[in-house]
């Protein structure tokens, strides 16, 4: 789900498990998409540190 909402930030490994593609701080233009991914993660597994 997160890789659909924010494909620049989240990918998936060969099992389909989500991975984070960006190391370090997120560019400002990706903040909204990343929040959307967080709000829609079915397992509530995304934590955004600010």
């Amino acid at each position, binding site marked *: 789900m997160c890789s659909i909402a924010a494909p620049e930030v989240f990918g998936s490994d*060969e099992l*389909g498990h989500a991975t984070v593609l960006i190391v370090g701080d997120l560019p400002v233009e990706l903040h909204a998409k990343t929040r959307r991914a967080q*709000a*829609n*993660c079915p397992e509530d597994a995304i934590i955004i540190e600010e």
Partner: protein
Amino acid sequence: MTTLEENAGPVNDPTTDFNIFDPEFVRDPYPTMEEIRESQCPIAHSGRWGGSWFPTRYDDVVAIAQEHDIFTSRDIIVVPRSAAAAEGPYAGVAAPPITSDPPDHHWHRRLILPVFAPQAVAKYEQSTRDLCNQLIDKFIAKGEADAGTDYAQQIPVRVIATMLGVPTEMADEFTGWVRGVLEVGLTDPKVRLESRLKILKFFQAQLDDRKKNPRENDLITDLLNSGDKYPVTDQYVLGVCNLMLVAGIDTTWSAIGSSLWHLAQHPEHREQLRANPDLWPTAIEELLRAYSPVTMARIVDRDTEFQGCPMKAGDRILMSFPAANRDPRQFEQPDEVILDREHNRHVAFGSGIHRCAGSNLARLELRVSLQVWLERIPEFSLIDPAAVTWAGGQVHGPRVCRVRF
């Protein structure tokens, strides 16, 4: 207590006597779900169909899904199996990993995940698009069609057959067998057992063939050859094939059918999707939320109390993902379809360790089938809303759904 006659009769209070196969509930379950959810007993109990609990609130459904140690998946069908199914040929064949509990669940799931990863299912997009176009070619000149039997029903069965490396020409037979297990057979144990045996006999022959003639890039061959990493048996591979056919067809077919049924009645949503293709990702999630097809069962492992309900070892719990997804505590305006819904943590695919392994494939099939339909048939409406027929109980969705365009 496994036939329609034994379980018929009016329902006076759904919190103590709900009937998942009541014709009105099958057609439109949401008012009953709401009545239970807002009552003093949001986890209803009924003695019908062998007895079951029915949680209707989002938080309760998610909590039960997370507690897989107490609420096991040793049986996931919404009604008890007949004694005859527990004996005879293939008695030990289940549907791993959905019927597996830890610790085996881990490798049962691990082995099939790679074929369902987003990058792995992407290769089915073009063939699914071609299939949808071919189906529409057959009826577009007529100006009307059955969006259920002529379209929705025809798509997932062929995608799954392709994945399993079995003949797509057998689509109608596969569909009949799956309906026998998940739809007709739930209220007719004889049909259920016969259909199950047909599926397992067919796949046993496929396994025997792959052992003699291994194939390249073939799921069944690859699973049979995974014995070096995991304790793979014929029973496991047979169970995975059983699962992919049974869980991969009726479910997605129902989601496609419900979405077309919705779009047939909502020109403003068709217009929104045409005007703004960026809406597709949230629209797909919203349609999955509002018309979640699947209800799965759990079996209580040991006596426990959950939210004040005294659950006994062996009790059945119906995990109503459709009811959870309409809970106003979790979703604003839950009965409205809002294609750009911002917050949508829906559980159409379940939650926890048994979350649907095929969700990426289901999403792809749903998106492509709706996109192709709207490209070719931008304007359409139901011919007779009252004539639409529905399946329910385990998988909810329209079956006959005639539209004019």
